């Protein structure tokens, strides 16, 4: 059964101000969705809602197709989909500690895990940084580490909040390659960006937040090369 998160009749307000509302959105394994919206339109908020970090003022988010939990485990929405914060949080410790934090020990054998860790280090080019303190990394390196940490878990659903906003072209390529692998493995991806970029070209669906509504379509705004140059130089 494919893992699926469905949000129904949701509206979100902060104090008196309405942020957005929508009737029905679903995020499934195998989906690759581009979430677009202006600054402050609520992209991060929508992702946190689906991740179970915040609750809607009205409406529900329902999870189906996930493994049932044991009685002592909480069966909350949190932990169903992996959400990568716009500004990644790294735990106090080395780069390696962070990478290994969420090893999916029950799903893979030790050898497979070892191979997966090695592959993550290779694809994110973190080899020379493994022993350094995570807090000493540069902005782009932090972002790469956070993506590699999520990549290792081979999540069913992964949400990336502006994943390449701090990155040079080289890092963007690395991230693009990792995300491509996840896409092939069938991970559902929800990628936010206020602008089209190399990543959004991978997407098959489009969610657009505008005028306090989330609109779903299958038309992906085309990504123009010139726009990317403009974007990169602005960072």
């Amino acid at each position, binding site marked *: 059964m494919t893992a699926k998160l469905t949000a129904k009749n949701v509206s979100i307000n902060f104090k008196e101000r309405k942020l957005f509302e929508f009737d029905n959105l679903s995020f499934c394994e195998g989906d690759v969705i581009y979430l677009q919206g202006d600054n402050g339109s609520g992209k991060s908020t929508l992702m946190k809602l689906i991740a179970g970090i915040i609750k809607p003022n009205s409406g529900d988010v329902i999870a189906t197709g996930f493994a049932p939990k044991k009685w002592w485990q909480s069966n909350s929405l949190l*932990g169903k989909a992996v959400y990568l914060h716009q500004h990644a949080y790294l*735990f106090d410790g080395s780069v390696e500690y962070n990478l290994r934090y*969420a090893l999916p020990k029950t799903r893979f054998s030790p050898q497979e895990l070892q191979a997966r860790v090695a592959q993550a280090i290779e694809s994110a080019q973190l080899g020379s940084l493994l022993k350094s303190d995570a807090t000493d990394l540069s902005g782009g390196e932090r972002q790469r580490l956070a993506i590699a940490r*999520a990549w290792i*878990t081979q999540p069913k659903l992964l949400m990336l909040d502006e994943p390449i906003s701090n990155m040079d072209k080289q890092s963007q390529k690395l991230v693009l390659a990792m995300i491509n692998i996840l896409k092939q493995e069938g991970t559902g991806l929800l990628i936010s960006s206020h602008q089209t970029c190399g990543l959004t070209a991978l997407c098959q669906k489009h969610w657009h937040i505008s005028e306090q509504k989330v609109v779903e379509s299958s038309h992906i705004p085309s990504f123009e090369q010139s726009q990317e140059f403009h974007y990169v130089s602005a960072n």
Partner: protein
Amino acid sequence: MNEGWLALMQQAFSLLLSLDPDVWSIISVSFSVSFAALIITLIPSIVLGFFLASYQFPGRWFVTNIVQTLQSIPTVVIGLLAYLLLTRNGPLGDLRWLFTQEGMILGQMMICAPVLIALSQAAFSSIDKRAYETSRTLGASWQRAIWTVCRELRVPLLLAVIAAFSRILTEVGCSMMVGGNILHHTRNIPTAIALETSKGDFAQAIALGLVLLILAIVINFAIGSLRGKAMPRSQ
């Protein structure tokens, strides 16, 4: 005068080094009573500190202020309260704990808990919420996520424990009133220092004072190395 001082210091050191039974019985009473009080209050106080910091509930403001107040009440007043509880006709009179180590432990718990609660609440209030969110969304159980948060906060939490322990190890008022300063039974370092000084037997008082001084030096240097090279960061 100078020679008098030297002689006193010599006597004090020889008391400690010759393992004088009276001096060492006093030291062991101090440590066993204070350790017991710390161990019993540790986990419940930190859990309460966590709840006070993390959840909004009616009465939270009130409880927080009560804890803060208890923290700043002089230990003699807590001693008085413990005495009234433990005295023959008091609510806990049937326990017959007055002038026993159990009574001293109870009194010290009443001093220790507010310090631990208030300081761990402060520590948990300073946490970046993304630490918990990141841990959960990467698939950790809530138990593990809380453990991760405590790990992120290990320095302020350890400081809370040390502050609480040094407060009960060095307090005179409550131990004197509830313990009664009985040699080999309830006489601990602070009550012994007070007594020996008033008798004019400075050598023993200095010997015991030295124990507290050495302990303070060891603890503070240990904390210093734990903090490491931690410098303010900008990120």
